[in-house]
């Protein structure tokens, strides 16, 4: 039996990881500007979240993940200084009823990509100590099944400005109101 890390110690080390990541992000403005970060053969880009409408409300983070490698991988966890807890969630729609569910992982096939977007996969943030404000950014550390980990800067946008992004998603459904495309 190995000695296990006590919870406070685990939290402390997680906080240190985030702190180091923030320093790295601050020291590399070019990477932050571009938005895309790499972890091995994985590229995480276009991370965004909507500004909080009021305090005490969860937030959803969206992003693109590309796997340029030859083996499949999966996003398995996320941590951030912006929230006490981050979970991987998806939406399950059954006859118009929307249900959010936690998922253990979000797969990224070899040579493929996955988009976390409104109405689908997202990183759900709970217990935010302060509201997310439009125009700000915050770091989110994502960890993959392979052990790869990287920190991406999440851009906070006005909830109204997120319409365009949601519309991109809607575009795939636009077929004159019929819903038999699947």
């Amino acid at each position, binding site marked *: 039996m190995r000695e296990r890390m006590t919870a406070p110690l685990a939290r402390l080390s997680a906080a240190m990881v985030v702190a180091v990541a923030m320093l790295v992000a601050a020291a590399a403005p070019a990477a932050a500007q571009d938005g895309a970060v790499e972890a091995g053969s994985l590229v995480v880009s276009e991370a965004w979240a909507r500004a909080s409408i009021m305090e005490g409300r969860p937030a959803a983070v969206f992003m693109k993940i590309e796997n340029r490698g030859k083996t499949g991988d999966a996003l398995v966890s996320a941590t951030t200084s912006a929230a006490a807890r981050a979970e991987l969630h998806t939406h399950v729609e059954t*006859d*118009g009823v929307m249900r*959010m569910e936690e998922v253990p992982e979000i797969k990224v096939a070899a040579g493929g990509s996955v988009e976390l977007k409104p109405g689908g996969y997202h990183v759900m943030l709970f217990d935010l100590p302060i509201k997310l404000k439009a125009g700000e950014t915050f770091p989110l550390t994502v960890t993959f099944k392979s052990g790869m980990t990287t920190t991406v800067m999440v851009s906070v946008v006005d909830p109204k400005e997120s319409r365009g992004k949601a519309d991109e998603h*809607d575009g795939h*459904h636009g077929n004159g*109101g019929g819903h038999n495309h699947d």
Partner: protein
Amino acid sequence: MRTIRLASWGLVGLAIVAIGLFFLFERPGGNGRGGNEVLRTATTGTAAIRADFSLVDHTGKRVTADDYKGRWLLVYFGFTYCPDICITSLNTMHDVMEKLGDTADRVQPMMISVDPERDTPEVMARYVNAFDKRIVGLTGTDDEIRHAARSFRAYYARRENREAPERYLVDHSGYLYLMAPDGSYRTVYSHSEPASKIAPDILRFIEKEKDA
């Protein structure tokens, strides 16, 4: 041989009619997918859906469906703790109102909370005002909300979180309901339909019934 062939064609025909009838009665306004237990119990036919409620609006005033008679209603059931779908839907509601032009005066957009514990009138005010000042936010007691949801045949269910009770979520119908000025049902729009599709459709309904 011939009788068998005729009989099998007859069965095929019967099956087609049966499938047609199934979809006719199971799908509100042709949206939704049919075949799930939840909606089958929640939807008992389009004629049964109507606006019937007594709730408190986001200014703290008691309102009933009668207070909105004479206006078209665009109704969404949601909750302010919802981080994604509700925001998308309220943005859509705002965009629809923008696209309706002058006709927007005849349409009352509203969000009915399915989370009365968190959504007080004050909370609803902050939430709906963040999207569009024309949106009315309604909330009430558990019983009042249950009654309202039933009248719309809208489904919702609170899902407890054992680990962190305060983080409970609420599953809910993702539809936008279009109700006529007399409170009767016209159609529903899925949360994934963009305002550019919904607004012209609402205008068609309003135009059509002007002549009727």
